[in-house]
Each structure stands twice: as C-alpha cells, then as structure tokens.
C-alpha cells in the first residue's frame, strides 16, 4: 500500500509539473515520466500486458512523436499567441464545470475491496486475450474499426494538403 501512495504521489507531482513548466519540451518529458509512473501502477495491479503496452505505445511511440513535432516548432516567447480576456474567462468557466463534474462523480464512487479481486490473473496476456475475443468481442471489433477510421481520415487529410501545393 505504501508503494501505491508513493507512486501515486509521483504521478500527481509530475502531472502538475507537465502543466506548470513554461518550456514545451520539458512539459513533454514530464508527461513521459507521468506515463512511466502509470506503468508502475499497472504492474502493481498485476496487469503486466497493459503495463508493457503502455510502456511501448505511449512512452515509446506517441511521446516520441510529440517530442518530434515540438522540436521542429520554434516555440519562443515572441511567437506565443496572446489570448484575449474573453477566452481566459471562458477557460475558467469550462475548468470549473469540469471540477463540478469530477466532484459529482467522485461522490458516487465506492472504493472497491482490493483484497477480493474477482480474477487476479486477468491482466496476464493469455487471459486477457481470451476475454477480449470471447466476452468482449463486439466492443473490441468496434473499437478497432474506430481506429481504422481515424487512420483513414488522417491519411486523407495529409493527401489533401499535398494537392494544394
């Protein structure tokens, strides 16, 4: 339990650092560390497959691409877009709405009993695969179609741009 609290503290600390640092590249690096602490959380939950996939996909691929884009952008102080007061006020209102929603949903939350985990081996690869391809086959297939749609959309957007030039 103490390990959990320590790692949870680290996650929240680095998540806050992600928001509060001025430098965009630092921000991405803190986000990478935040994802790393998530990986530790998954291992603590005995979800090894999820842990290693989080490690490969988020830390190893997506954040590398984030860093890639940020390195090519010239993020200086003078190029920073100035936001009008109206946008700031809207931002504050939207943030408060989010806080209210989270607070409301937290009130309904019950803490699950960690001792009586229904199936402790569910996070292992073979068990997870069997469950995904039998019990949750339809949601699994639908989400894969969703991802395919996003991919086709991305390719289409990239194609249109080259035609204009």
């Amino acid at each position, binding site marked *: 339990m103490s390990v959990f609290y320590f790692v949870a503290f680290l996650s929240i600390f680095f998540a806050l650092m992600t928001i509060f640092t001025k430098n965009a590249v630092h921000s991405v690096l803190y986000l990478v560390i935040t994802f790393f602490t998530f990986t530790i959380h998954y291992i603590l939950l005995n979800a090894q497959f999820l842990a290693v996939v989080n490690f490969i996909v988020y830390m190893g*691929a997506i954040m*590398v691409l984030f860093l890639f884009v940020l390195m090519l952008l010239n993020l200086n102080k003078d190029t920073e877009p100035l936001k009008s007061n109206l946008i700031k006020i809207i931002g504050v209102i939207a943030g408060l709405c989010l806080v209210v929603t989270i607070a409301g949903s937290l009130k309904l939350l019950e803490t699950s009993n960690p001792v009586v985990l229904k199936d402790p081996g569910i996070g292992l690869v073979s068990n997870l695969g069997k469950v995904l391809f039998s019990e949750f086959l339809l949601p699994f297939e639908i989400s894969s179609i969703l991802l395919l749609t996003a991919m086709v959309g991305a390719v289409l957007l990239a194609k249109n741009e080259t035609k204009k030039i």
Partner: protein
Amino acid sequence: MELAFIIEKFALVILIFVVTLVIAMYSTLAERKVAGFMQDRYGPDRAGPFGMLQPLCDGGKFFFKEEIIPAGAHKALFILGPTIAIITACISSAVIPWGRDLTIAGRVVPLQVADINVGILYVFGVVALGVYGIMLGGWASNNKFSLMGAVRAASQSISYEIAMGLSIIAMLMVTQTLSLREIVEQQAGFNWNIWVQPLGFLIFCTCAFAECNRVPFDLPECETELIGGYHTEYSSMKLGLYMFSEYINMFVSSAVMVTLYFGGYNFPFIDSLGLSPNLLAILGMVIFFLKIFAFIFFFMWIRWTLPRFRYDQLMNLGWKMLIPLSIANIVLTGVITIVKDTFF
C-alpha cells in the same frame, strides 16, 4: 524474498553487466579488425599483441579528453541524453535466458535475471525508449545538424518499430508464448524458429539494424550530410557513451535474434551427449555466445559491405516494403497454422 535469492540475482546482474561491457569494448576492436580484413590491410596492431590493449587505450583517451558543453546547450538534457542511451542499452538484456539452470550446492540457479511472462515485449519497450537518448542529446546541443540527426533518429525508429512488432506477432503465433525462456525451450535440439519463420527473421533482422542505427541505416549520424549527426557537439566520455551504447545495443539485439530464431542456448544433439546437467548448461552458454559473436560479425560484415541509404529510400523500405511484407507474413503464418491443424 530470501537473502540467497537477492545475492544470486545481484551476482548475475553484475556478471552480465561486466560481460556486456567487455564485449562492447572488444567489439570496437573487432570492428576495426574486420574493417582491416575487408579492406586488405592490418587493423590496429600497435597496443599490445594483435592490438588487444587498443580498447583500453581508447577508453582512457575518452576519459582524459576535455569535456565541452556548448554555451547555448541545455545543460541538464545535454547530460541526460547519453545517460539514457547507455542505461536503456544495459537494462534490455535483463530478460534474456543465457543458459539452462545451474545446480550449485543443491540450489537451482536460473541463468536469467527475470523470467517475466511478457519478456519479449519488455525488450521491445526498452529499445523503443532508447531513442530518447539520441533525441534529447540532439535537441539539447542547440545545433541544427544535431537536431536533424535527432529528428531522423526519431522517425526512423518509429517507422521500423512497426515492422519489427508485426514480425514478432507472426513469431508469437507459432510459439504461443511471450516468455523468452519458454520460446528457447521450445526450440530444443534443431527445431529452431528460423525454419518456420524465415521471412519473419529477415524482417526482424533488417529492423534490428535500423534500431541499432547501424550501416546501412545510420542516417542519424550521417557524416557526409550532418557532420556528426546527433553527437556533433559531444566530446570526451559523453561521446564515448553514445558509441558504447551502440555496441551494447548490437550485442543485445544479436542475443535477442539468436534467442528468438536460432535456438538460444540449444544446439543439435544436446541431450544425446550424456553429460551432466551443469556441464550442459555451461556448454549451452558457450554455444549461445558463439552464435552471438557470429551475429556481431554479421553486423560488421554488412557495415563494411553496403553503402548508406538515402533518406527517402529508408522510408520507402520501411513503410512500403517491410510493413506490407510483415503483414503478409502474419496472414501466411495464420493460413499455414490452420491448414496444419485441420489436415495433419
């Protein structure tokens, strides 16, 4: 967690680190000797017999050189770059099974640091993390050429990771497990996975070259276009660590390739020799290292034979050749598995 267990693992980790570093050290010498052989000249032969002390001299030189951190560089990330490169290179060997279990004084000692059931994905993840070292180092140098090298490294590793992952999927369809220990045990004798997955091995091997930034995929440090690429601004041991991590990566990826496709520590007629289990374990380990050295030689052979790709050729090969080929390999493997299960 008993004390003996901790001591045993600690000793194993230290031993593997030492072996890895020594092999990486002598790979630098071997590379130059192989280059000399290929180009019909002597390699380094001044320091010690056959130049055996050359790596020590090089190491000493790296340590005593002046260390320069450019004024415009981001200091913390500039130091972090080589650190990440060397750490990720060293920790990726944690899941490789080096040999059969040894029995010392009634205690079974597995020659593997951690037998986790997602072993191969662990290697994959750590390799994916290794690119941060190059990217951060290149960006923090505050130099256009370094940045170009870093950007090239990032896009190259992302592109080739996809094909590598897909070729592993086809292999897993055959082995039905992710644990490297079990994969090796299945290849007992001469049932190596190379016989069932030749195309998969070809794709994996090509991608391993790309992930190690070896010729013909060493565009991040292409000196004809980018001076030194991502390590242009580095000097002293920081440059040494970058080079060292490349050689360690070469060693580890050779070990992974041998484990996955060439039977690991298995060799033909292993069980008909009639030797004691401990002796067989050690013999298997020796064979494993011989296979690894053969692969390291292969890496060097390719380096001094092929010229470097152009960047568009690299991307075309990755996206238009290797990825469709590896998907076809998955389909083919699936069809063959089904046909085998239903008719034989």
